[in-house]
């Protein structure tokens, strides 16, 4: 009996959510109850989702269709530290760094809404620094791959030629996003420090920059799983 009541309550709650969504979209005014900049950032990220999915899908397609063996990423990206052979070491460190930077960014957004100017700026600078170290490691990885392993976009000694073009295209485009993010975060953090958003009366810009940064981390989750681990 009590379960029936609970069930009914749950279904009316779901219905109320749908009614609210329909009413939000049907009214002749602002449909999304967020600042316009945030709605626009979401639309940009949506389009970026399509771009990265196209890259990853083309990678899937060439990897399925090649008759040559695909180079073993676990071996290609292995590092030798102090005589021991550790697979994917650099990639694991890069993954942890990007996750950490996402954590500091999330906290920066939170302190922004608490109007804690100094902590917000400090956490954003930390995020940008983590991002910069990520790009640095990527540069190291690319150099090692090009100089030592002889990987080129049109071929490599380990197997299928499509490995190189997929790798440079996907990680290159992601690295470009990280680099742009570092600049973006630094600019916003400097404004935070100068009290620009206190005068403006809202810290929403910090949250919008945060959305972009988390998206970069999100894309890396998929690249890590599908390119490096698969």
């Amino acid at each position, binding site marked *: 009996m009590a379960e029936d009541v609970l069930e009914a309550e749950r279904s009316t709650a779901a219905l109320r*959510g*749908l009614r*609210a*969504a329909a009413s*939000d979209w049907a009214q002749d*005014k*602002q*449909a*999304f*109850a*967020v*600042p316009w900049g945030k*709605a626009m950032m*979401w639309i940009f990220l*949506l389009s970026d*989702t*399509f771009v990265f*999915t*196209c890259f990853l*899908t*083309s990678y*899937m*397609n*060439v*990897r*399925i*269709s090649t*008759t040559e063996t695909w180079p073993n990423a*676990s071996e290609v990206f292995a590092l030798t530290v102090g005589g021991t052979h550790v*697979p*994917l070491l650099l990639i*694991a460190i890069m*993954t*942890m760094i990007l*996750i*950490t930077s*996402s*954590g500091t*960014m*999330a*906290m920066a*957004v*939170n302190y922004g*809404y*608490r109007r804690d100017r100094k902590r917000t700026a400090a956490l954003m600078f930390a995020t940008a620094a983590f991002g910069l170290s990520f790009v640095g490691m990527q540069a190291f990885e690319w150099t090692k791959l090009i100089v030592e392993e002889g990987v080129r976009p049109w071929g490599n000694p380990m197997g299928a030629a499509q490995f190189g073009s997929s790798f440079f295209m996907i990680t290159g485009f992601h690295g470009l996003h990280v680099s742009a993010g570092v600049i973006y975060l630094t600019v916003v953090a400097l404004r935070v420090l100068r009290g620009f958003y206190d005068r403006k*009366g*809202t810290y*929403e810009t910090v*949250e919008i920059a*945060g959305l972009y940064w*988390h*998206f970069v*981390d*999100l894309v890396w*989750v998929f690249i*890590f*799983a*599908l390119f490096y*681990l*698969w």
Partner: protein
Amino acid sequence: MDQAVNHGQVEEHHAQGQLHPIRIYLCIWALLFVFSAFSYMVDYFQLQGALRWTLIILFMFLKATFIVAIFMHVAWERLALKLAILTPPLALLVLIGLMAIEGDYTFLTRLTAFVAGEGG
């Protein structure tokens, strides 16, 4: 004028709606670390076959869900925005499915063509 007032209210309401305790972010951060470590372990211990890609996909989706829901605050957004963000990427599933079929077809065509070519 009316619109300006409305916009101000939206912002104020918005800022209050996103004030979550810092602890949440630290927990999610730790969770993401653990999931990443697990997916790295999959490679480190060289798990292969169905077990390997099931685990990789599982950890990938768990991480993606936590980043989008908590770090990007989607869990606390209104349904109107959630639908606008989350439904369009479903179209990509069609692309992925079609390209997988296409890839298999190309692979088979190459196999038959190359083998026939070498035989002749």
